[in-house]
């Protein structure tokens, strides 16, 4: 009995959330790997000018289509541009688009979702619009938008965000509908708490964990969509090196010079994989209910 009483404080010294994080990391060592790869990629993108790169747009006809070598780590493309430099600078585009879309669509989806989950007449209207938007295959919606606007990274971010918002709204709405029935929310309403305050103080904090998990997956899918859009000529403008653009330009040459596709393709896959692994780990740590289902 005495021994058990002494053991108690030790058990309680770690908060349940932290313990859950530790357990999740033990079960998902790959999440740490994902975080490390992602951190390295972000570091490389930020430090691109100091990592032995040259101007990624510098055209040099005499240096056309050199295979990878000590001088040109990833070779040169058909205009003599250094592929290593282009890939490293391209990381900036992918990561910017991924992060921006994850943040913007989560915020927009959160605002709309909170309103629809709590205000009945908004729900009826907004969900019909969301159902319609969700019936348009995401890449096609983004293509339609990009066909009508000038190519720019801002427009790419906007187009992809628009395709992702309905999915976030769905998630937030289902969370809010579940939370609304919880005793602590009913108690708050019964105690005379206003709608706005109920939403901010009682509902919002409980949506954070699933939204963070969702945001990592949004980031991964946004990076793929950006590459797809650039690859088919409806994405990042050609004067900015992005992984999709590099691959698009190498399309006709790939049987002769596969490295032009390989390096940007490998970087993109690796980064998306890292974000997905991180997301799986976070899902286990933050959202045990969902984790058990998957």
């Amino acid at each position, binding site marked *: 009995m005495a021994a058990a009483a002494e053991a108690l404080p030790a058990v309680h010294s770690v908060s349940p959330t932290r313990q859950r994080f530790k357990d999740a990391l033990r079960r998902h060592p790959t999440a740490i790997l994902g975080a490390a790869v992602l951190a390295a990629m972000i570091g490389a993108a930020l430090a691109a000018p100091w990592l032995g790169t040259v101007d990624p747009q510098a055209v040099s006809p005499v240096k056309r289509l050199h295979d990878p070598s000590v001088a040109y780590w990833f070779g040169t493309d058909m205009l003599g541009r250094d592929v290593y430099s282009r890939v490293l600078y391209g990381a900036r585009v992918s990561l910017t688009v991924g992060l921006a879309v994850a943040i913007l669509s989560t915020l927009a989806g959160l605002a709309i979702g909170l309103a629809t989950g709590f205000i009945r007449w908004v729900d009826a209207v907004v969900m*019909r*619009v969301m*159902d*319609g*938007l969700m*019936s*348009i*295959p*995401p*890449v*096609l*919606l983004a*293509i*339609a*938008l*990009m*066909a*009508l*606007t*000038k190519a720019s990274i801002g427009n790419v971010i906007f187009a992809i965000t628009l395709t992702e918002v309905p999915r976030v709204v769905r998630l937030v709405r289902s969370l809010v509908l579940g939370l609304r029935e919880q005793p602590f929310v009913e108690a708050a309403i019964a105690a005379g708490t206003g709608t706005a305050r109920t939403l901010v103080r009682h509902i919002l904090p409980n949506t954070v964990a699933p939204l963070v998990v969702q945001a990592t997956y949004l980031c*991964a899918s946004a990076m*793929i969509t950006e*590459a*797809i859009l650039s*690859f*088919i*000529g*409806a994405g990042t403008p050609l004067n900015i090196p992005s992984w999709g653009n590099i*691959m698009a330009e190498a*399309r006709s040459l*790939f*049987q002769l010079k*596969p490295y032009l*596709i*390989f390096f940007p*393709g*490998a970087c*993109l*896959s690796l980064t*998306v*994989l890292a974000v*997905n*692994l991180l997301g*799986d780990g976070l899902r286990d740590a933050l959202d045990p209910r969902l984790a058990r*289902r*998957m």
Partner: protein
Amino acid sequence: MLAYLVKRLLATIPVMGVVALFVFSLLYITPGDPAAVIAGDIATAEDIAHIRAKLGLDEPYLVRFGTWCWALAHGDLGVSIFTNLPVAQLIAQRIEPTVALTLCTLVITVLIAVPLGVIAAWRASTWIDRAVMAFSVLGFSLPVFVIAYLLIMVFSIQLEWLPVQGFVSIREGWRPFLQHMILPAAALGTVYMALVARITRAAMLEVLAQDYIRTAQAKGLSSRDVLVGHALRNAAVPIVTVIGIGIALLISGVVVTETVFAIPGIGRLTVDAILRRDYPIIQAVTLLFSAVYVLINLAVDLSYTLLDPRIRY
């Protein structure tokens, strides 16, 4: 059942209405002058005015939407800005390869992903399960064109087993048709397989924990009978649902896959239309694919009664 079918069919009308209104309104809500963007950088004022008239941008918004919907209801999808041909005709010419590709992918996916998911759940926490889950994470992470080029690299260029690119109609024989279909369908299907395998595994895990599974095992049924006859039947609804939802992934992937493999389908038509900013084509393709997506998911909803006798409408 019939009443439910009619009700569900009617319910797709507002959804398609929102889609149509949205796709149509893009011309008006995008910043800047879409006619100028479509005409390109070297266009004259006359070119822009010509395109404005063609898109009907000079008319009032509601009038234009009304005539557009009326034409749509009569099967008129508009006229291509670049070729001056009716869009419906252009799509009809290109529809066969796209239908062939998506059907092949669908068949391959279901034949591979469902058994993978079943086996992973049956042998949960073993190396087979981990391998399937690893494949699933990889499938979600590798973009379709990266997979496509990897497959071409290995099977067409190194091993020379399959053709690099192109499409052969099924009318010219099964063998060449399938030879040209295997790689595109595999590339297009990977992410879809990852999704279906993952959901199949999750649904099966839930069902396998039920008492009636233990009863079935206790009365001496073979593993196969338990898995297929009892477990998979009861896990079918979420699996079929995700197969329906995943069609959106296929449609998005078709555009890229047809580009990589030089397949003259609707995806290729779309990519060519992007390069020429031929908006009527993009508009029509978006509408068409959205309608297909909505109808497939309606069919999925209706299939629930066949899969699960407890569900009645």
